[in-house]
């Protein structure tokens, strides 16, 4: 056991030295043959790890820097705080649960399935209580959706602040959820006594100490909201609301109540703390906009980016990023290398899915000259992601939430990227 570890570490150090000598190592036969190929390597000789070494596997240790990180001074206590998905280091679109950003208002709680209860009350025909088992007996659906905190990119309103896509855009994740349509549960309790539904709301509330509660208009509640119990095929992680959370496609993350314990049908918005004091946008003249639930179209280049410099110099370069819209599918993403003077349409890794992350690529040749990299998302409603100047013109600089501006990275001749703001 110990011996394997040591030998593989030796091999690892040797391997990384070869890489450090230059990315040419793989091609430059001029320096002589590559010992990684000509010499018998430990891993090609000794046996590797047996099955069951890790009954639930973690990423290999070479990837241990790909983790959630927080910025301590942003909040008073890690119990009521946020951290960021390492989007710079991921590809494709699905976010593994283990590195998907967390936002808690009173910490993540351990709530066992046996102790789980979900109540539906208020203007319903029969107030009901469900156990976890009950929830799994309703017909369920599978959907991939992004969940973005309304405060994602919030720091950047005032100017270029944090250096890294993880920190500027990492309050987002994208998972495949399995759950029961909220509509099904509401029908089970009966909406007959609610009368006219168009002016009704559901108030949803979590079981943790913050008792996070949000009001959702009935139209949305009956549309695509899910009461989810699985993400990416497995049970929700504790930090994502095990055993049951709400999924509110395309709408701000705070509404995706975790540890969902109660659904109340009401005849007006509750105006809870999270929909008045927080998650409302203050404009230049001091008035604020409320009920700004939909997350507008947005995109960011994840590589190159400050945490992902270009390691290889001039030549073929893959510029890659993520795009999403709370209004539906992403239909197009454009990329600019000169700060928005000229744009090229990028290739979508897979066709856009409604209210889910879409990966884009621009496969290009880099001439080694500095770039001002930007991306601009367009969704199926024809909405074009605005510049920071356009957003500020409408909202000023104090809005905090819902910043979906075009992001700029300055990339220097060494391939190192930095968060900047441009004219």
């Amino acid at each position, binding site marked *: 056991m110990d011996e394997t570890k040591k030998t593989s*570490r030796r091999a690892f150090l040797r391997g990384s030295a070869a890489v450090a000598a230059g990315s040419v190592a793989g091609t430059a036969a001029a320096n002589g043959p590559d010992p990684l190929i000509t010499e018998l390597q430990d891993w090609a000789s000794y046996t590797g790890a047996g099955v069951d070494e890790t009954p639930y596997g973690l990423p290999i240790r070479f990837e241990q820097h790909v983790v959630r990180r*927080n910025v*301590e001074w942003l*909040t*008073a*206590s890690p119990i009521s705080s946020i951290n960021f998905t390492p989007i*710079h280091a991921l590809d494709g679109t699905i976010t593994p649960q283990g590195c998907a950003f967390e936002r808690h208002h*009173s910490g993540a709680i351990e709530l066992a399935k046996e102790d789980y209860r979900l109540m*539906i*009350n*208020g203007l319903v025909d029969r*107030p009901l*209580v469900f156990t976890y088992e009950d929830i799994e007996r309703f017909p*369920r*659906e599978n959907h*991939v959706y992004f969940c973005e905190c309304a405060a994602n990119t919030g720091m950047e309103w005032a100017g*270029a*602040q*944090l250096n*890294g896509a993880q920190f500027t855009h990492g309050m987002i994740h994208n998972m495949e959820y399995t759950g029961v*349509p909220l509509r099904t549960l509401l*029908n*089970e*309790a009966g909406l007959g006594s609610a009368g006219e539904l168009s002016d009704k709301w559901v108030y949803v509330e979590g079981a943790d*100490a*913050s008792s996070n509660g949000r009001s959702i208009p009935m139209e949305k509640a009956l549309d695509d909201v899910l009461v989810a119990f699985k993400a990416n095929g497995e049970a929700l992680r504790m930090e994502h609301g095990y055993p049951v959370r709400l999924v509110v496609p395309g709408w701000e993350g705070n509404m995706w109540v975790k540890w969902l314990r109660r659904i*109340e049908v*009401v005849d*007006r918005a509750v105006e*809870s703390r999270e929909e*008045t*004091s927080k998650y*409302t946008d*203050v404009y230049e*003249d*001091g*008035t*604020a*906009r*409320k009920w*700004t639930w939909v997350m*507008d179209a947005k995109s960011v280049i994840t590589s190159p980016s*400050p*945490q992902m410099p270009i390691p290889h110099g001039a030549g073929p370069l893959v510029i890659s990023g993520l795009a999403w819209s709370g209004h539906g599918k992403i239909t197009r993403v454009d990329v600019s290398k*000169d*700060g928005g*003077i*000229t744009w090229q349409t990028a290739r979508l890794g897979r*066709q856009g899915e409604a209210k889910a992350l879409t990966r884009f690529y621009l496969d290009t040749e880099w001439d080694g000259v500095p770039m001002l990299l930007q991306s601009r998302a367009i969704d199926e409603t024809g*909405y074009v992601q605005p510049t920071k100047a*356009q957003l500020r013109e*409408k909202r000023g600089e*104090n809005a905090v939430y819902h910043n979906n501006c075009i992001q700029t990275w*300055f990339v*220097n*001749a060494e391939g190192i990227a930095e968060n*900047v*703001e*441009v*004219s």
Partner: protein
Amino acid sequence: MSKSPNLLLPALGFAALAVGVAYGVSTRNYKAEEAALAQLQAERAAEQAAAKAAEVSALEAQIAQVQEVAREEVRLAALSGGTLSEPAPEREGTFGLGREAHPQEIAAWDVDVLPDGRGLPEGSGDVWTGEEVFVDQCAACHGDFAEGVDNWPVLAGGFDTLADEDPVKTVGSYWPYLSTVFDYVHRSMPFGAAGTLTADETYAITAYILYSNDLVDDDFVLSHENFAEVEMYNADGFVVDDRDATEYAEWRAEPCMEDCKDEVEVTMRSVFLVETPPEGGSNSVMNPARDIALPSFTAAGPSFIPEATPQPVETAILATAPAEPEPDQGDALVATGEKLFRQCSTCHEVGPGARNKSGPHLNGLFGRVMGSVDGFRYSGGFETAMEEGKVWDEAELAAFLADPKGYMSGTRMSFRGLKTDEDQAAIAAYLSAASE
């Protein structure tokens, strides 16, 4: 699926009606010719019915075909990476799952308060009682006057700052509804002991917060009866989402692709670089390169090539050597204690570099004089204990944690404590291990 029977029903109904009418007519007529006529009518009706039936089956086939096409579309969309996932079936009736909620259960959980005051419990509280409870239970984090301590939320003041560069959003300056204050405090505060305030205490605290914001006088008593009369400063400060009109209308246009600007300049560089300290986590430092000039851009490219941006070593590109395996703590008790300490960590730190938060750091607790951490402002009880030279040991800690307020009356530690012997032993084991 559920659509087809609905569509067919009226058609079938019509055919059945035609046969029925014809039959009824035929039985009521005696005269032969009339009978013959009836016969004819019946035959015609039967013909009609047959024609209708044929129509119906044609319709049925058509529907089946449409459905088949739709299914195929769903399948193709799914194959091409589309978003259509097949919807779960729905029922006319219910599934009969779940059970009726008990009125007491609803009363226990349904405590939210609506802006018009619906949902308020009966009760009342005055400003002075509110101040006492606030100083006792809230001030450690929010300040004696709700002005906020460190990074904790500010609850008072900030009037007329909403249009400033840095608006101060407090209950007084920003919150539109009083119901939100009562509801939030009642359910979610104090942080770390949510749900423990009585209705009267919550009325009193709410009155005190109003008083701190100059919204009421010091003799004010708040109750469920006069709740609706209080006017909030920013009641009219909100508009409902109007992006549709103000933004979408403008931003749904084909964007420029070429020569969109003449020149682009870098107007600001990132203020903070986020680095990863060796002990893990992240740390942000000021960007040291902010004064280096960066080029402007035109369609021809950058105006010059600047020197390299100095960067702190970025862990993302250097695979760090794996950490040595942690020494086996070997002690399940310590591990349990570590978990329990999460409840304390809102307010206390322990271990290397531990600082005072809203509670004092807990390094070297056993053998330490009570109330003796430098720079921490203790309540009177702990100050007296320090003067008396009382020292922390496991037994004292257990007694304190079993009932914080009972052990030290007037303590500012608003925490319900740890009730069981096992938990007390585990936390003691962890505190000893962690401060080594």
